[in-house]
């Protein structure tokens, strides 16, 4: 594997939204290829802002983000599409076309890889269909390939979301609260899938989470944000309750953990 694949670097990066809200403040951060990073912070801390800066869904007001040494373009166009091709994204609300088959949804991950007219007329090359099928295999739902997305459970839909990202053959995966709409059992399955894929394929993975115990359990490296600022950056193994208190600016409660037994320790 290419050593320079999937590295991310923020340099003095800031995002101020048009209404004046600060989404990111002077962020300096480096993420190495293949890392599994969990980003935590209370609601509005800037977790989504950080992820969405990496694939250019949000624009920086100052500073830069680089992916593998190339600055993320700050305007729409070919260059930005070329970058996005290598960055898969997974969403809290899955974002599938419900009326289409699972396969059609996964093929959306191939849009940037094939000539426009092929996608337009649904004339996908065999190779791309194969990549899509492999992606489904990777998340264990090949048997659902020809089922309509609407007929899947939440966990299965999120697997399709993951497969769509994998179909991009990405260097980076950005997951914005991927388990926030799922029940506890499914949550653990999806988190395990993400970790396994990270290990198997070496794809740099950034996951926004708001459950502290999940962050500690699955994160390799934890990044804490507060009011758009980096307030914690360290290994998940060493993170303490004290650190979490700093990140959240308050004592945490059972709302902050998935498994309630973890509170009060």
């Amino acid at each position, binding site marked *: 594997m290419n050593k320079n694949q999937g590295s991310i670097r923020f340099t003095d990066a800031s995002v101020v939204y048009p209404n004046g809200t600060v989404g990111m403040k002077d962020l300096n951060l480096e993420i190495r290829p293949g890392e599994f990073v969990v980003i935590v912070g209370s609601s509005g801390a800037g977790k989504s802002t950080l992820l969405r800066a990496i694939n250019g869904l949000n624009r920086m007001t100052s500073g830069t983000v680089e992916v593998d040494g190339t600055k993320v373009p700050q305007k729409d166009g070919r260059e930005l599409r070329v*970058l996005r091709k290598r960055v898969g994204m997974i969403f809290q609300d899955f974002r599938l*076309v419900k009326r289409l088959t699972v396969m059609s949804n996964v093929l959306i991950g191939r*849009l940037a890889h094939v000539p426009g007219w092929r996608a*337009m007329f649904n004339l996908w090359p065999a190779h791309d269909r194969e990549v899509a099928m492999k992606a489904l295999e990777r998340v264990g739902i090949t048997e659902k390939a020809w089922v309509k997305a609407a007929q899947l459970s939440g966990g299965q839909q999120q697997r399709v979301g993951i497969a769509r990202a994998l179909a991009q053959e990405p260097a980076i995966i950005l997951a914005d609260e991927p388990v926030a709409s799922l029940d506890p059992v499914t949550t653990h399955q999806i988190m395990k899938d993400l970790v396994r894929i990270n290990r198997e394929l070496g794809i740099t993975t950034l996951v926004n989470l708001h459950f502290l115990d999940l962050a500690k359990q699955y994160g390799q490296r934890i990044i804490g944000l507060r009011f758009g600022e980096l307030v914690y950056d360290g290994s998940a193994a060493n993170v303490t309750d004290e650190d979490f208190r700093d990140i959240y600016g308050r004592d945490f409660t059972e709302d902050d953990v998935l498994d309630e037994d973890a509170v009060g320790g």
Partner: protein
Amino acid sequence: MNVAPPRPARNWPLLLGTLGFLVGMTWWSGHGIGFSLTELLCNLPGGQRLLQESWPPDFAFLPRLYAPFMETIYIAIIGTVVGGILAIPIAVLAARNLTLGPIVWFADRNFMNILRTLPDLFWAMMFATAVGFGPVAGALALSVFTIAVISKLWSESLEAIDMGMPEAVRAAGGTWLQMIQFGAIPQGLQHYVSYALYAFELNVRASMVLGLVGAGGIGMILETQRANFEYERVTMIILAVLVAVLVIEQISESIRKRLA
């Protein structure tokens, strides 16, 4: 315990005021166009004679309606298909959340407004001067009419779609066109089909009206028979059209239900 709040009292002044306003408006409008009840009553014998002459319908005339009727339907189909296809880009560019930019949006909106402001009869006249009176001019006029109907309705439903899916297509490196095709249109498809069917129903009716001014089809037959005082045939035509329109509406209704 939960007790439902008491039902609020009717707002009688508002209700009576509205009613009074409507009655007043109607009287005023009728006065404006010279409508008078006494005149209508004096003319009743004439109307009675017309009704007598129009009954019974001339069933022997029915077979001769087939060809012109089909022509009417063809005109409506061509208008719906051509207009329905052209309405797609026009509606997309008129949807604030999907358009390519403020200038394109503004131009497209105004274009739509012009199409909608001018009546289908006007377009029929325009096209008649270009290609001559007949079915082709009718079909072209209905294409414009269809664009106006579908683009207005559909651009509004497109503005209400969830932008999550279009964003996901963008995030995967998709182009603007791909965002529209894979992210937006699937969400608007049901509405589109429903509006296209609605436009077809309108087009069948409009196609008959255009026939009256020479665009061919059933409207033209209707006009010739009326001019020849063949009122029993006129009744027959009206009956046939009534049945046909009901059948078409029934079919389109069932297609729409199946989509839902």
